[in-house]
């Protein structure tokens, strides 16, 4: 592999790094001959899909690989002229947090819930710089100020649960930069954040890089983030770096087929401007049905409140309005995209629509109001309305064969006898692009995308008219995501399904929807056809949401 070389000495230099995983079947290589340099003041993005070895690379640099399962087999990691791979644990401790600091993906779980923000900030400063408590606290305050946290003094005595996700990630960044590291390793630092918060954090990282002079390794799956942030990019696949180069060159003249596929699969906001409805994916199918006169789903003044009043002897929970006065209609063959950030009430709306949580207002499925129906009365209605969940790993029983999982709804509703069931399962599997012999296998034998296909087959088993898809592709890699979305579009065209498509991802919503509703704080702010909402957004929040989406084109970079 041709190495990227520059005149200045790299801060961090990795050569031929190989990492093995210990499995019951023996050793398996998970990183193969990874080599790259990180130059002073540079942002290097390591991009790739899940399982490509991005995180293993960063944990190797920190020497934080879980000893029981992963081990560096060969290669060198040099920080300046110091070799890290054979450093003692004690010596490595001064590197961690001192010379190389790390920011992780999950701000919600990456801070210790029982230790105050102040202590979590100062302990690293005291560890590495030997400063006494008062001075360390002063530095901590400066850092909180540098990451633009409001009321920094008050934050020192607060605990993580009192801070929002975005603020926690700011604290993580403050913590990482507090000892003025040479290298900042950020592993998917914005993946768990809302898009508007992501934009703020990315801006902050660019700003702090200049201020603190750290070099950054930014690990991400999001090519939009890469285009926004990177000076140089390394693309990883199956434990190898298959291509690296300057950002412009890589985006405009990708050499490898995989890089080209990856870039092609990236959804681009605005890609469907000027057209009505989602693209047709099955030319052989009959043209879209004329919308049925009566809608499949009508929602009127839906309200959901969480919490319970305190009753004598029992503690109450404070009551919170999760969804307020939501109304919409959905016709067969159509998709309503429900978009919003976390806490906007979009998932709660999806659950209420299927009668999975208590609500007030009216929800009419196929003309029947489901408000106040008992489990028994709901059962026939559940046949017509099904759900596809976010996490294809958690929503399939690991001990149930795929065929049995798909047949289960048929059994519950007493729809098919044993022989018919097997035929039905085989047909459903073919329908979602899997082989019928998948029926006898178990979920762990399938990839994330295949599992989501299985979940779709399960949802289709009862021939529903309405499917609520809650972040159904959020857990999937971009290339897999595109194929699952195509499958959903094709099923809609051929079966006339109505989708209530819930997502935080503007580009996915744009691709899938006929109509779009933008939610915030439990209310619909703006609703209309996709063209109305995306090409002429009326609400300020909708515009802010769209502006915050990183554009996967380095020439469109929003420079600060």
């Amino acid at each position: 592999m041709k190495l990227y070389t520059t005149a200045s000495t790299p801060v961090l230099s990795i050569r031929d790094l190989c990492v093995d995983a210990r499995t019951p079947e023996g050793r398996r290589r998970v990183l193969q001959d990874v080599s790259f340099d990180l130059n002073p003041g540079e942002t290097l993005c390591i991009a790739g899909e899940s399982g490509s070895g991005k995180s293993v690379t960063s944990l190797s640099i920190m020497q934080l690989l879980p000893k029981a399962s992963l081990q560096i087999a060969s290669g060198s990691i040099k920080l300046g002229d110091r070799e890290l791979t054979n450093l003692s644990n004690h010596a490595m401790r001064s590197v961690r947090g001192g010379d190389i600091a790390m920011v992780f993906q999950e701000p919600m779980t990456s801070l210790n819930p029982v230790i105050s923000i102040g202590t979590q900030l100062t302990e690293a400063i005291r560890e590495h710089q030997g400063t006494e408590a008062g001075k360390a606290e002063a530095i901590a305050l400066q850092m909180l100020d540098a990451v633009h946290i409001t009321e920094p003094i008050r934050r020192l005595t607060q605990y993580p649960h009192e801070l929002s996700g975005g603020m926690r990630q700011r604290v993580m960044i403050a913590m990482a930069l507090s000892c003025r590291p040479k290298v900042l390793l950020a592993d998917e630092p914005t993946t768990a954040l809302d898009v508007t918060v992501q934009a703020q954090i990315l801006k902050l990282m660019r700003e702090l890089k200049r201020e603190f002079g750290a070099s950054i390794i930014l690990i991400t799956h999001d090519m939009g983030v890469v285009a926004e942030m990177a000076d140089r990019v390394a693309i990883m696949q199956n434990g190898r770096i298959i291509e690296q180069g300057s950002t412009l060159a890589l985006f405009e003249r990708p050499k490898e087929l995989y890089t080209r596929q990856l870039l092609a699969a990236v959804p681009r906001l605005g890609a469907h401007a000027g057209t009505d409805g989602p693209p047709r994916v099955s030319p052989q199918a009959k043209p879209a049905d004329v919308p049925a006169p009566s809608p499949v789903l009508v929602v009127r003044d839906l309200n959901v409140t969480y919490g319970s009043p305190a009753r004598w002897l029992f503690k109450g929970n404070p009551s919170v309005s999760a969804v307020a006065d939501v109304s919409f209609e959905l016709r067969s063959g159509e998709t309503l995209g429900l978009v919003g950030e976390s806490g906007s009430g979009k998932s709660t709306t999806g659950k209420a629509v299927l009668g999975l949580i208590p609500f007030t207002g009216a929800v009419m499925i196929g003309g029947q109001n489901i408000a106040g129906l008992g489990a028994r009365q709901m059962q026939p209605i559940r046949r017509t309305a099904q759900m596809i969940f976010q996490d294809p790993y958690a929503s399939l029983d690991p001990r149930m064969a795929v065929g049995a999982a798909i047949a289960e709804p048929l059994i519950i509703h007493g729809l098919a006898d044993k022989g018919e069931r097997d035929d039905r399962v085989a047909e459903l599997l073919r329908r979602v692009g899997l082989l019928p012999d998948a029926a006898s296998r178990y979920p762990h034998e399938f990839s994330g995308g295949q599992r989501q296909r299985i979940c779709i087959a399960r949802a289709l088993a009862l021939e529903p008219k309405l499917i609520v898809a809650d972040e159904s592709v959020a857990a999937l890699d971009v290339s897999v995501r595109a194929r699952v979305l195509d499958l959903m579009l094709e099923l809609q065209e051929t079966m006339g399904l109505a989708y209530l498509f819930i997502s935080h991802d503007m580009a996915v919503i744009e691709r899938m929807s006929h109509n779009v509703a933008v939610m915030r704080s439990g209310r619909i702010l703006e609703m209309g056809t996709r063209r109305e909402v995306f090409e002429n957004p009326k609400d300020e929040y909708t515009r802010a949401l769209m502006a915050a989406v990183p554009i996967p084109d380095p020439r469109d970079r929003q420079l600060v």
Partner: protein
Amino acid sequence: MAFLILRRLVQTALILLGVAAITFLLLYALPADPARMIAGRSATAQTVANIRRELGLDQPLLVQFWAYLQGIVHGDLGRSYAQKTDVGALIAARIPATLLLMAAGILVEVVLGLTLGIMAALRRGGPVDRVVMMASFVGVSAPQFVVALLLLYIFAVTLGWLPMSGFGTAAHVVLPAATLGILGAGWYARMVRSAMIDVLNQDYVRTARAKGLSSARIVLRHALPNALLPIIAMIGIDIGQFMGGVVVVEAVYGWPGIGQLAWQAIQQVDIPIIMGVTLVSALAIVLGNLIADIIAPLIDPRIRAQ
């Protein structure tokens, strides 16, 4: 806060009422006749009937229960059939000894359980882990009277290091406390181990490692408080188990606490004492839960906030 305490007091009163009712009914459903036990084998039917009237045992059950409840409200737990003295005073005299034994037992189980549990979690899958898990399994499953007799045989009879039974010096408390603590230690070691393994895999422990903190600080400051949270919630239940153990251990070692009192009362069908000890034990469990509820927010700011 005031409302919380008030609610807790009402809950406690209801629990004690429930315990009183259940124990009372169960005890009177026993085939044994306390009057006959007191009168002795050779007593005439007339004597037995007199005793029965004297104790109020000829009254209908509900009347007896109502009288008993009225007594409790006035702080009167009744009079012992056998010893003819005030049950409240009898129990009060025994409580210090039992508290001493429980404190020593809890110290053994917490120190032993925490240390072994943390060691096993840190050396997960290794020989230390396996030995600890095996030992804790034995500790949890060995009946207490067997452990007690084994310890007596080794340390009192064979080695002669510690006294067989009795009360008074520090040496007297060692074997009973160890017997009580071993069961709990095995239990705690397992709980602490699994909680620690869980916590050590959390993202915030990875953050602490990435900050370059020492292993000691990571384990004791970052991991342990989080691992203890689910365990603290179990203290109340633990005290219930402990009270059961106290009866056995006090009987075996001749420890003059309320367990021994209960043991003697059971043999004599001395119902007022059995009732009294049961109520005191129930109160101890309620208090244990209260202590857990007080400690948990000290460690966890998320509970403090509510």
